[in-house]
């Protein structure tokens, strides 16, 4: 992923910045400028709390090439408390202690490094709430 592309995503990766629909009030993440609920324009920024609970989870043993050195790692779908769901890695957690419904919170971690020379991408992961 190019430097510019990573840079464009920084508000989402570092702060979970999405949008609020001024028409129906829906919280939107990731931002799409059109409300998926009512299809009205929605461009008001909304910074999400980063709190949520696990909708589902998995441990990845056979990763894509860019994540080979990280495997095995845990991933999850997290239902954010504002409503939307987000896909992310889990961190600071033992495999055996993860369950559906478990409260989690966002933290900033290294997501991936693009080779020895490339940039290191940081962004959100989730860990058990209140560690």
């Amino acid at each position, binding site marked *: 992923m190019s430097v510019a*592309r990573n840079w464009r995503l920084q508000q989402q990766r570092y702060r979970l910045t999405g949008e609020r629909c001024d028409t129906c009030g829906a919280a939107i993440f990731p931002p799409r400028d059109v409300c998926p609920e009512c299809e009205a324009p929605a461009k008001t920024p909304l910074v999400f709390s980063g709190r949520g609970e696990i909708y589902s989870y*998995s441990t*990845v043993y056979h990763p894509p090439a860019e994540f080979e050195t990280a495997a095995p790692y845990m991933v999850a779908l997290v239902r954010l408390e504002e409503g939307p769901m987000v896909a992310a890695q889990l961190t600071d957690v033992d495999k055996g202690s993860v369950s559906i419904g478990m409260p989690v919170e966002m933290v900033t971690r290294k997501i991936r490094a693009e080779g020895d020379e490339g940039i290191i991408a940081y*962004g959100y992961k989730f860990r058990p709430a209140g560690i």
Partner: protein
Amino acid sequence: MRDVAIVGIGQTKVGEHWDIGLRHLALEALQGAMADAGVERVDALYVGNMLSGALVGQEHLGALVADFAGLRGVEAVKVEAACASGAAALRLGYVAVAGGLSNVVAVVGVEKMTDAPGPEATSAAAMACDADYEAAHGLSLAALHALLMQRYMREYGYTKENFAPFAINAHANAMNNPYAMFHLALKESTYNRARMVADPLNLMDGAPIADGAAAVVLAPVEWARQLNPAPVRVAASAVGTDAVAVHDRRDPLLLDAALLSSGRAYRQAGVAPDDIDFFELHDAFGIMAALSLEATGFAERGKGVRLALDGEIALRGRVPISTLGGLKARGHPVGATGVYQAVEAVQQLRGQAGGSQVPNARLGMTQSIGGSGATAITHILERIV
């Protein structure tokens, strides 16, 4: 709109073809289909493919395949819709003939995957996902299906072992298909012992990446009998879409794209699920087979796995699926898969499915699903009696 028929089919064996490149795979399938239809020229060529750019460093497949197939000059384009690329090419071929813009159209689905190391192929296939919000965070297609499977198990009270019948059924049926990648019966104990790819999804649950090509020739129904003694009518062709990212869907366990495309197909053909004699579905993973059965109305929500456990997906069951091996055991050369499904459905409807023949099959349905469910393309094929 004109009625459209499939008047020719061709396919290569699915597998690791170290000795055959992408263009010659396409050529072999295409020549097979054109010979079967008894035509030497076509008005247009649609090439279904997802990963030639990423894995072979070759795009521009429309012109390339046309040229090497001896069709230089013909209208030809590549069609991409992730894992449903082959079915998307079939859909566009159908549109061209049904709309009267072309008379004889060739559709070929082709994929060459085994030249690349496994992790690279995994990475390339993950392009079907949301690059910024799924793949960039380390979620592969297998990981996304594992997330769906885990939630499904929790929601409806199944174990991961309960998904075994999908793979076992596919392997049993592939024994009768000379073009299938695998000819080995899968034992339940083998399935249960397989190593994890993305917990709870194991290696025996997922369809293998592979090389392969399949092709069909389409023509107006009124021409069909002159071209082929056993033409098959395309009774319905429909595409549905949904959010690309699993987390953006209304309900991740309900495949809205499959619901939409099958609903449109049933309406077009004027049939209901009960009328369908067999269903070539997208069993890239057991969970996708279950969700597809549910979204298309063959099982209630949460009952797709139950249908498999009860043996209803077998050749003599209520809804025979993966009758010639499915993605799981015929193999899953991604962009070719949708055309393989159509070719196999035609074999069934012609009564040429050998030991996998569904008795007196008259109406068959195929459904190809892109990525983790964002595109679903359904075709209903009917024997012309």
